[in-house]
């Protein structure tokens, strides 16, 4: 049933334990929050799941497959996509190219593909044009379709990064602070998109790192609370946020 299972993951950097024996699992059709103070190890945990960092101990299992030591591009090909804290759109490509690039399977990204499968390539291009338009529309960037991504606002770049993940067909989305630095209107827009994603496709799993507690309460039913590299609490969002220790450590109440 669990899509992503993390077992006993630890990571020390320069002798400092950033992630300490973390065990967690994430279910499909649901947005799970991952909260905690700065430096709690949330982003590092994302790095370990996506293969950017190698964990010292433990195992990561995705849909019954061990993915612990795969490089990032192979983790991505298994269906794990990530929204980076610093967005990372392809700045010199247009909005549309950004989304199309996410659609291409690595088997068509070989230099020989356009020569050996010319017809397939042309058909694929038409097909993906429609698909990318659908997702650009999904996040509401249709009128920006042909402008370079660098000329989008920060919030629009976040929307574009989300469109890219959706078009890429990822079934597990690791979202690192999708609403940070955005105005309330944009936050609302992004939350509606996230809700729509899980509502439309029960196979999608979303893990959300977020500091804004109103956001977490609104979209995530379950949260993990991390502190000093460990999972300190896990439970229903209102329970965890109501906990005295959590309120002291994190919310400063």
């Amino acid at each position, binding site marked *: 049933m669990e899509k992503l299972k993390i077992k006993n993951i630890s990571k020390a950097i320069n002798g400092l334990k950033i992630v300490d024996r973390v065990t967690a699992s994430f279910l499909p059709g649901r947005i799970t929050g991952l909260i905690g103070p700065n430096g709690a190890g949330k982003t590092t945990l994302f790095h370990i799941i*996506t293969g*950017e960092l190698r964990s010292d101990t433990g195992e990561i299992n995705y849909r019954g497959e061990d993915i612990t030591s795969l*490089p*990032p*591009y192979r983790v*991505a*090909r298994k269906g794990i*996509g*990530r929204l*980076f804290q610093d967005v*990372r*759109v*392809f*700045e*010199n*490509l247009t909005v549309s*190219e*950004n989304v*199309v*690039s*996410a659609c*291409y*399977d*690595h088997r*068509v*990204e*070989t*230099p020989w*593909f*356009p*020569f050996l499968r010319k017809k397939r*390539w042309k058909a694929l291009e038409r097909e993906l044009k429609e698909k990318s338009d659908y997702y650009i529309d999904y996040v509401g960037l249709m009128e920006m379709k042909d402008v370079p991504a660098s000329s989008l606002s920060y919030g629009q770049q976040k929307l574009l*990064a989300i469109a*890219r993940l959706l078009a*890429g067909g990822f079934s597990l989305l690791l979202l690192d602070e999708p609403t940070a630095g955005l105005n309330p209107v944009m936050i609302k827009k992004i939350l509606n998109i996230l809700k729509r994603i899980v509502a439309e496709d029960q196979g999608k799993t979303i893990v959300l790192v977020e500091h804004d507690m109103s956001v977490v309460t609104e979209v995530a039913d379950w949260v993990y609370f991390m502190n000093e590299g460990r999972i300190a609490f896990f439970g229903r969002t209102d329970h965890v946020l109501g906990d005295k220790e959590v309120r002291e450590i994190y919310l400063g109440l």
Partner: protein
Amino acid sequence: MNYILHLLIMIEIYLILAYGLNLVVGFGGLLSLCHAVFYGIGAYASTLLMIKTGISFLPAMLMGMAITALFAFLVGIPALRFRGDHFVLVTLGFQMIVFTVLYNWVGLTRGPYGIPEIPRPGVFGYEITSLIGYLILVGVILMVTIIILFILYKSPFGLALKALRDDEMAAEGLGKSPVHTFLYAFIIAGGFASLAGSLYATYVTYIDPTSFTLDESIFLLSVLLVGGTGNRLGPLVGVVFMILLPEALRFLGLPDTVAPNVRQMIYGLTLILLMFLRPQGIAGEYKINHYGKAEN
């Protein structure tokens, strides 16, 4: 007239080099300082094959291409572990090593004496000796090169290269393998440089290692920086500008005693001005920023 034909032939040869390198520098965003090495290996490999085994030009050219591609693969594996400045330095190191080998392996390359009397290419029974014939031969090979490269430029492979160039971490997070994609680009660029080398060797009928020095690699890189990278027009503009500008300066009517030095200075100054006025190159859309890439 012969002078103009000669310039046109050289422009064609450099276009093959520049359009191939564009895949690595413009699309991949990797500043390679060893493109002249692939040019040189192609020239030497096809020449030695023709002289030592007596095979004709076209098969020698294709075998030279295969040999150079293999070299590019062997260099690419270690070089592509690095990005930014470190990649530049690794390719620089390779450039120096190969130049030293070409210069000192007298038994094979005749070292500094060079290889004279390289046979003219025979294509389908015709020996090509005239400048016009040469212009057409190089032109045909240039056309084939451009058709293949333009398809690659707009293929999913080209888009993946650009995505990796703009943000390697994000592109890898979408399932693109940086090492595979960059390596393919490096090998393809090497292969086409080798074609240019074979054509150059049989055109001037004499090669020595000084045609394939670091200066040459820097020249090729500046062709792209001046013309603009990552698109179809940039290399054309760059090659025409960089080859014709020094030629045009000859007609300034400078006194003979100072002419060569002044020409060099005007040439250098023009490049500096250009970088101030159009850092993305004359016809470029994308500004190479390898310091930015080093962060990834």
